């Protein structure tokens, strides 16, 4: 008897969990239907591919943010970090001057190295300085942003070598078996992220740290190392996003990545990760990023929203989508 009771209990729990994880997908479907009603062009393959491709930067960055937020941290510096990394990467490419794969590989290495170092800096200051991550990353946000403005002298950092640009261009505009490269990139990043978060001891430590730091410490979780690592992962994700971003316009300006941090955090929260930590949903995050981009897309495709009101309608749609999502799992 007791055995059956236990089993139904477990089954029930698993079922509710599934609904929670599914709800961002349900919000996505609702939005897709809304989009199709607004403008039939919405559902064309080219439009949908454009939108999903565009969401790649935020999606990749948000996968990293999922780790940071799930562990109870926050990183506001990702937008500035992306701009700085893009700037340094382009300057490196210009400095090397070649137009071959080797040059490109070195530039990419510089980008990933720098962004990982930026993440490490954030992590070390948060852990060893024992300062609120909000303050630390607000500070580094200003630092990284100013550095890129200084490097660009307020202007634009542009890839000078035309041949190299053409060589690199397919990383944003190309596709493999009909799927644009950025989409493949963010699916890969999400898959690896999900693997780390759900299937490794480190992933479980991240969640433990986010739910209750004291309990995690008493259970022997290496708090400092885990926390610093989440910021490094965030940094590497920013680096990967930059690798996909640079070939699009081949330049970095002081406005590159402006407000990306807010979009990344929004994507993470829409995806079902708790802002207070303790829960992390990588696939939900990716869907959250796509949802944000779809909402913007629907606004431009619609004929009845004045350009002055786009922001208001966009905000309302995001709130309604979240309400739909909540009512779905409250109903279960």
């Amino acid at each position, binding site marked *: 008897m007791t055995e059956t009771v236990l089993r139904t209990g477990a089954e029930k729990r698993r079922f509710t969990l599934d609904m929670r994880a599914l709800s961002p997908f349900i919000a996505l479907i609702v939005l897709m239907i809304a989009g199709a009603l607004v403008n039939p062009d919405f559902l064309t393959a080219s439009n949908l591919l454009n939108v999903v491709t565009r969401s790649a930067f935020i999606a990749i960055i948000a996968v990293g943010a999922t780790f940071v937020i799930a562990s109870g941290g926050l990183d506001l510096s990702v937008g500035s970090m992306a701009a700085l990394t893009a700037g340094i990467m382009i300057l490196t490419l210009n400095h090397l001057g070649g137009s071959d794969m080797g040059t490109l590989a070195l530039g990419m290495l510089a980008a990933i190295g720098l962004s990982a170092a930026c993440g490490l800096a954030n992590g070390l200051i948060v852990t060893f300085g024992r300062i609120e991550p909000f303050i630390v990353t607000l500070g580094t946000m200003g630092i990284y942003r100013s550095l890129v403005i200084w490097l660009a*002298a307020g202007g634009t950092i542009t890839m000078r070598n035309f041949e190299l640009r053409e060589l690199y261009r397919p990383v944003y505009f190309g596709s493999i078996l009909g799927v644009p490269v950025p989409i493949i990139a963010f699916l890969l990043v999400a898959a690896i992220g999900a693997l780390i978060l759900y299937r490794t001891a480190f992933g479980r430590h991240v969640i433990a740290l986010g739910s209750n730091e004291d309990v995690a410490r008493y259970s022997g979780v290496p708090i400092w190392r885990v926390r610093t690592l989440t910021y490094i992962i965030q940094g590497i994700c920013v680096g990967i996003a930059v690798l996909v971003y640079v070939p699009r316009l081949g330049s970095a300006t*002081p*406005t590159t990545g402006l407000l990306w941090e807010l979009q990344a955090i929004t994507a993470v929260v829409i995806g079902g990760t708790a802002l207070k930590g303790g829960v992390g949903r990588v696939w939900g995050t990716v869907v959250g990023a796509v949802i944000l981009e779809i909402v913007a897309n629907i606004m*431009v495709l619609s004929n009845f929203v004045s350009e002055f009101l786009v922001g208001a309608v966009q905000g309302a749609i995001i709130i309604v989508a979240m309400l739909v999502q909540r009512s779905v799992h409250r109903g279960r």
Partner: protein
Amino acid sequence: MKATAWKIAIAAGLMAGVATGAIAQQKNVTIGVSIPAATHGWTGGAVYHAQETAKELEKAHPGLKVIVKTSPDGASQANALDDLTAQKIDALVVLPFNSDELTNPVREVKKKGVLITVIDRGLKDPTIQDIYVAGDNPGFGRIAGKYFADTLKQGNIVVLRGIPTVLDDERVTNFEKAIEGSGVKIIDKQYANWNRDDAFKVMQDFLSKHPKIDAVWAADDDMALGVLEAIRQAKREDIKFVVGGAGMKEMVKRVMDGDKMIPVNVTYPPALVATAMHVTAASFYTNAPMRGTFVLNAQLITKDNAKDHYFPNSPF
């Protein structure tokens, strides 16, 4: 006789002095220049031109000292004005961050008997300024609009707007007025924040939404670059040309090289800072009257005059 010879020699010396500017040695003047720090392309250009002009003017008028200060926001600009006043300036050239915050600080400087030159964004109280130098935003829209009406004559265009501001509004309403009555029709317009990435996205969506677009008014060179990349990706042949604006050097170069997609550009030169500095210096070193309002025309840059607007060393 000897005295007359001396007088002649002195007079000759003075004449030569006028020619080389050596006469200015008798006149020590300090001009303070307060402008926003380089936070985007246009202000980057403004800072570049301010620094270049400071060097030029100091060379042309010995005894003249030009102090250039850049500030990242309105509050620090007010502090910068205090610092400049402390250095006993005779004239202030100021490009205010915004009208509201800086009207009073500039009035305080004025009370010390300093000549005030205001650039671009006016103050709340125009009686403070002695000299006012501004770009022409309505003209910026009008000239672009006229080009569309004259060149395209007939067709559907899309418009990308900047950041919702008075300035953006003046440009767009005058653009609309200029194409009124012609066969050119705006089928869509959307804000893209003077940002390359936003312009890229908006243009991608415009291209999905409208099967035929004849031309694009991007109203800004950063936005024009994003638009061009979106068009290239979509491999669309229907768009005849894209018009940006503000005279970014890369875009002026393309006009100069005769790029079919970028036939013209409209100026809104960051070098208007340089104009203001020259006018201010001239009011000390010449007898020509300088006080008043100077509005720099928005100019159409075409293949023929592009080289006059091309500054390869400027960051913008």
